[in-house]
């Protein structure tokens, strides 16, 4: 029974990630009118699934077993903890989406896993020191560093393009068309990077229940769920975002996408769950600072920092409450 609940929660989370976060990273390619919606969904779906299955195990390991020490916990506790964490993160994401808050699924699931850890501490199963605080600290540092990395990288990439290609080009519309074609590649890259990082948010807890090593089947379940979310709901989000960022021409979109995907994929290599959406925002600011956009809104930095500060405690508290409740049944 609990396994099914867990699977449904994981699929809901995956659906949500596909509907929102993957869609967020596909906004520019549609905004630039390079590909139509169907092409975007097919390409992003395949790339995302590939990223999840081939490269998703490290972050999944961090989310599943990196924060709460599983030794000394019974399988029942782990199953309850995983369920509590999934439901808590899923609920918070749903509320935040409704409130238009730029909340990250990565932050939510990390907060929720911490809540589960604190629940086991309350039950005297583990001591508070044995929670992997260092890993948690590293993850939180990466939340700060990933948008900054995206910003710096995007600034550099756009500066290079501006100095070398844009400055010499005789026919700017043609140059933009060429970069439009290149964006097909960067979009696949960004979807791949997203899959490698965000699949963990859906299946991290699930893999924790299943056992020691992360199985490709689990990653594939997550990946398929994400693609399903993109196809059934994400196109609306892509459309909204595509309309909003019409100022982002292909040379700018290319810079932002390349910077974001590289940053996120590097984080995946280190097993760090980061927010792709926040990294894109950092990259867009980087392009703006390099003089590539008519007006960049800095208020969003405040919004993003607020969402960090709220998400971890809220997700942790929800998860803690759910865990304690589930354990009483």
């Amino acid at each position: 029974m609990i396994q099914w609940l867990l699977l449904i929660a994981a699929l809901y989370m995956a659906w949500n990630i596909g509907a929102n976060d993957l869609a967020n990273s596909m906004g520019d390619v549609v905004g630039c009118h390079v590909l139509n919606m169907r092409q975007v969904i097919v390409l992003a779906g395949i790339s995302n699934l590939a990223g999840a299955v081939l490269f998703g195990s490290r972050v999944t390991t961090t989310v599943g077993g990196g924060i709460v020490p599983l030794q000394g916990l019974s399988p029942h506790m782990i199953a309850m903890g995983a369920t509590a964490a999934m439901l808590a993160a899923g609920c918070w994401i749903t509320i935040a989406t409704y409130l238009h808050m730029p909340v990250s699924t990565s932050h939510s699931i990390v907060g929720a896993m911490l809540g589960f850890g604190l629940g086991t501490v309350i039950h005297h199963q583990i001591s508070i020191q044995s929670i992997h605080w260092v890993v948690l600290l590293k993850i939180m540092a990466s939340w700060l560093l990933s948008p900054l990395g995206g910003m710096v990288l995007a600034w550099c990439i756009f500066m290079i393009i501006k100095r070398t290609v844009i400055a010499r080009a005789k026919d700017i519309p043609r140059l933009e068309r060429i970069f439009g074609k290149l964006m097909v590649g960067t979009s696949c890259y960004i979807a791949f990077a997203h899959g490698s990082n965000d699949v963990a948010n859906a299946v991290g807890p699930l893999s924790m229940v299943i056992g020691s090593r992360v199985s490709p089947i689990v990653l594939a379940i997550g990946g398929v769920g994400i693609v399903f979310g993109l196809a059934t709901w994400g196109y609306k989000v892509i459309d909204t975002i595509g309309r909003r960022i019409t100022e982002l021409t292909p040379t700018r979109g290319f810079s932002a996408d390349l910077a974001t995907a590289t940053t996120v994929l590097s984080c995946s290599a280190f097993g760090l769950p980061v927010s792709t959406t926040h990294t894109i925002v950092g990259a867009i600011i980087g392009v703006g600072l390099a003089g590539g956009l008519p007006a960049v809104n800095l208020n969003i930095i405040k919004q993003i920092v607020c969402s960090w500060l709220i998400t971890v405690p809220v997700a942790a508290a929800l998860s803690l409450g759910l865990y304690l409740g589930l354990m009483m049944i």
Partner: protein
Amino acid sequence: MRYARFPRAIAKSPFIPLQTHASITVKEALLLREILKAYGEGDEGSVRRITEQISKLEYEADKVKQEARERIPSSIILPVDRGDLQEFLRTQDVIADKIQDVARLMCFRLYDLPKDVREQMLTIVDRTIDVVEEYKKAVTKIGGLLATSFRRKEVKEAIGLIPPIERTEHEIDILEGQLSKRLFQLEARIGPLGVYHVLRIVKCLAEVSDAASRAGDRLRTMVSK
């Protein structure tokens, strides 16, 4: 609809309303020719009607300026200096205001002017329309570049559109001087108050091109940095 949690990273470009504003100003300037014709013919009804049209356009321009201002809060990063842009918006608005002032002055009282004076005034109006059109060309070109490609080189080339504005403005200054002198000879025909009144109209007309040339200069400062 409430299904996106992607923050609005790119704000609306303030360089679009700036171009709209210039187009409205040209529409206003074109009405100057009609109003002067009606004034010369002593057609008070038409003068009033055209003044109303000009006022409507001026109000429209004001709203566009307001919109541009709202698009540049301090939380926005721009490719140009914020102070320069604000200063440009202010001078840009003066052109529209001055055209309205000319029309309003004409409404106060109509004087019967000799043909040569009417013709000289018409020349000034025609040259003023030229200035405003040249100004609009510069704003559209440079504003368009700032809104889309940001190529410094192209923007600097577009600065070449500004000196013609200043040249025409200088011509108008000379015409204004000549006409003012001629107006004093009309004391017997329209009385001292009449001379004063028409002088003010001509002065105000010259201020339109002054404002356009100042706005052009601000535009140059804004993009030269």
